[in-house]
């Protein structure tokens, strides 16, 4: 009887319809690379635990062109993850106060980049020369 007939629009294919959504899906997809890489590390650990020969085989496997290609892409994904992670972190943390004023979001994000950069350098230093 009612003259109402609300029309509900389908959601199919929504993630392609807005560049923001595309970036969101990209961000979420980095998880696939993160997962695979973690498994690769896990395999490495398994090899490591079974002795030197096994470990060296793992190292050799890492040299295959496919593996290198994967790692190049995975590194891109990891960097993209990091960038997006730092940019949303201020939404998760309670507001940062300094001298009774809220620290602007841009400053927090920049601070995190700097902090992460330092961690990267330290880590790299430890791995290469530590």
């Amino acid at each position, binding site marked *: 009887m009612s*003259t*109402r*007939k*609300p*029309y*509900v*629009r389908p*959601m199919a294919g*929504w*993630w392609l*319809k*807005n560049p*923001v*959504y595309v970036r*969101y899906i990209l961000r*979420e997809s980095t998880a696939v690379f993160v997962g695979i890489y973690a498994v690769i590390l896990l395999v490495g650990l398994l090899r490591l635990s079974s002795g030197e020969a096994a470990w060296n085989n793992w190292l050799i496997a890492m040299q295959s062109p496919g593996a290198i290609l994967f790692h190049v892409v995975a590194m891109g994904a990891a960097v993209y993850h990091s960038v997006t992670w730092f940019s*949303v972190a*201020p*939404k*998760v*943390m*309670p507001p940062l106060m300094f001298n*009774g004023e*809220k620290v602007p979001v841009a400053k927090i994000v920049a601070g995190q980049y700097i902090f992460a950069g330092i961690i990267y350098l330290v880590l790299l230093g430890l791995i290469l020369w530590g």
Partner: protein
Amino acid sequence: MTSNDKIIEIEVLRYRPEQDEKPFLQSFKVPFTDDQSVLQGVQYIKDYLDGSLSFRWSCRMAICGSCGMMINGVPKLSCKTFLREYYPGKITLEALKHFPIEKDLIIDLSDFINKLESIKPYIIPAAPRTLEQGEYLQTPRQLDRIAQFSSCINCMLCYAACPQYGLKPDYLGPAAITLLHRYNEDNRDAAKAERMQLLNAHEGVWGCTLVGYCSDVCPKDVDPAAAINRNKLNSTMDYFLRFVAPRGGN
């Protein structure tokens, strides 16, 4: 209108429930001047081209929250979006996404209203004061904790931006959670524990995957994504601390 007015093409997704099975696009040519808003564009259509076109509006100054629509795919307030920004391209208008269309640019927002009612959006004091006792004290800093989150105009742009709301209509959603957070953070209120139950649910903060677009489109800089995601932390504390300190951490 003077003769040197420019003409812009405005395409509107029409839907008339009594006649149409599904929405369709209709195009209009609208003369405009540089200071005219998209809202003024659709008003022109209604006044002079097609009187049956329906949309909501009132204040024209971005405060009543009624004139939101998808403008070239982006949820915006039509009263503070200007035609010149799109010229010489065309503009496509559509009712806010993720809501059922009632007619043309009008959405059904009863779902949101129900959610708003469900979160107890009013002060529940620990000990009520009488009027003779005067106002509660609240320092500027305490006010600052709620100021941003209490400036939501219920315009629904954030819901139209949030794919999770589109996918899971039960999700409480950005504006309702923000309002809930606003009352929880108010130093005059003492009902945080009650409201936390809503947040802790699957349909509460856990419906959000931090797409973040809600905050991008918010015309009032409310930052609903922050209100939601800070409560993921609160809800998690509540989850683990309830064993230690019953009734949730704080």
